[in-house]
Structures are given as structure tokens and as C-alpha cells.
């Protein structure tokens, strides 16, 4: 087993671990915004590590995989913003554990 193969196993293993943590985080966190923390940050790094690991197994795939990584980094947070905004606009989803909520105050001020 070459050094590159070992590195590839380390990367895919770490990626899988981070993705697992992300799934567990979405399950364990108590409300919609905190679930989003786990669901955005950890899936992004998890996918990046996993894809880089695959790229080390098959070096000829690397350019395509780097492109996929770029698109994930650019689009993953955008979907999270859309979900977070939608959740904040929907009063029935509003978690009651927020200690401070400037956005609700801002909206209240506009009316």
C-alpha cells in the first residue's frame, strides 16, 4: 500500500466521521437554527474531505472533484440561508429558547 493510498484512507475516513457527526447533530440539536449549524458546516467539510480522499485514490479524477468541492462550498451556505430565513419567517417554527432576537425586533419595528 503506497503512501498516497494511506492518505486517501485517512481522508475518506475523516470525511465519513465528520458526515456522521453532522447527521447526529441534526438529530440531537433541539431547534431548527441549531440543527442548521450541524447540517451546514459539518456536511461541507465532510464532503470536501471525502471527495479529496476519492481524488487521492484516483488522481485522474482530481480536477472534476475539485470542481465539485468548489460548487459545494459556494452553494451549501446559500441553501442554509434560504432555509434559515424561511424558518424565521414562519412563526410556528419559531424556537422559544432564543435569548436575543434582533431580527424579530427589526421586523416588529417595520410594521
Amino acid at each position, binding site marked *: 500500500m503506497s503512501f498516497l493510498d494511506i492518505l486517501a484512507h485517512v481522508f475518506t475516513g475523516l470525511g465519513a466521521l465528520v458526515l456522521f*457527526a453532522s447527521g447526529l447533530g441534526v438529530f*440531537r440539536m*433541539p431547534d431548527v437554527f441549531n440543527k442548521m449549524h450541524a447540517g451546514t*458546516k*459539518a456536511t*461541507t467539510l465532510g464532503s470536501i474531505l471525502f471527495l479529496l480522499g476519492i481524488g487521492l485514490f484516483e488522481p485522474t479524477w482530481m480536477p472534476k472533484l475539485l470542481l465539485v468541492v468548489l460548487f459545494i462550498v459556494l452553494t451549501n451556505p446559500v441553501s442554509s440561508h434560504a432555509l434559515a430565513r424561511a424558518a424565521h419567517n414562519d412563526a410556528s417554527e419559531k424556537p422559544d429558547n432564543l435569548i436575543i*432576537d434582533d431580527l424579530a425586533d*427589526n421586523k416588529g419595528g417595520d410594521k
Partner: protein
Amino acid sequence: MKRKPAVVSTTVVLFGIWLSLTLSTDIQEIVLGFVVSLITAVATHGALTGNLFRLLTPAKFLATIGYVFFFLGQMVKANIDVFFRIFRPVIPIKPGIVKAKLTLKSERAKAILANSITLTPGTITIDIIKDEIFVHWVFLPAGDVHAETQIMVDSFAGRLEKIFE
């Protein structure tokens, strides 16, 4: 033609994407890719990238590289933070949505700022209204939350300002 640099840099980026997706040295593929990239760039007036050539001054180039590494470091820190948080028996959270002032003018810079904040430790962006950004903390910082949030936003905004303005 005012948008010429933007069209050229969009063509270069699209052509680069084409080359890394096809990975072919066949002359037909390369010519077709170039033509399609050019048509797309002209038709969209270079809206994908804007004028990338502005980044080619040494100071802005270094600032861009610096930002990429700063961002990657923050992202790894964010994941370690999430990782150790969710394996605790009781998850330590103290959530809150805090606003901060934005000084950036460029819409592209604002979008990058919002994305960066989402991927870095303990914070996600919820909304930007005019020149205010609303950030959700999983664990509110000690002390004055508004001042702390402003410091966190400015640490990104200051770096982005060097690139975009």
C-alpha cells in the same frame, strides 16, 4: 464595449470548468468548449465572475490567497467546534440572533461574507436587510453580544474590503 473584461474573465473561468470536466486533449472538444464558453459569457454580459482581472494587482492577489487560507482555517475550527459540541451528553447551547453593521458596498462581497460567516465557528447568517446582517449564534459570546458580533463580522469584512475595494 464596457463589459469586455468581465466577458473575457467569465470566458476564461467557463473554459477552465469545461477543461476540467472533459479532461480531453481532442482539438474538437477544446474548440467546441471555447466557443460555448464565449457564447455563454457574451450572452450573460460576464455576470458569472465580473471583472476578475482587477484581482491581478499583487496586493489584491495576496489578500485573496490570504482570505482563502484564513477561511479554510476557520472552517476546520468550526467543524471541531460542532464535533465536540454534539457528542456532549447535554449539548451546551445559548442561542440568539444578533445584528451587526455592514460596511461593504459590493453585492458580491456581501454574498461571500454571508457564506463565510455561515461556515465559520458557532455562527450562521440568517438575513441581510439593507446594511445590517443578522447572525445566529449557537453559543452567545460573553460580554456585550453586539460588540462581539461586530468584531467577528469585521474580521471578515476587513479582509474582503482589501480584495473588493
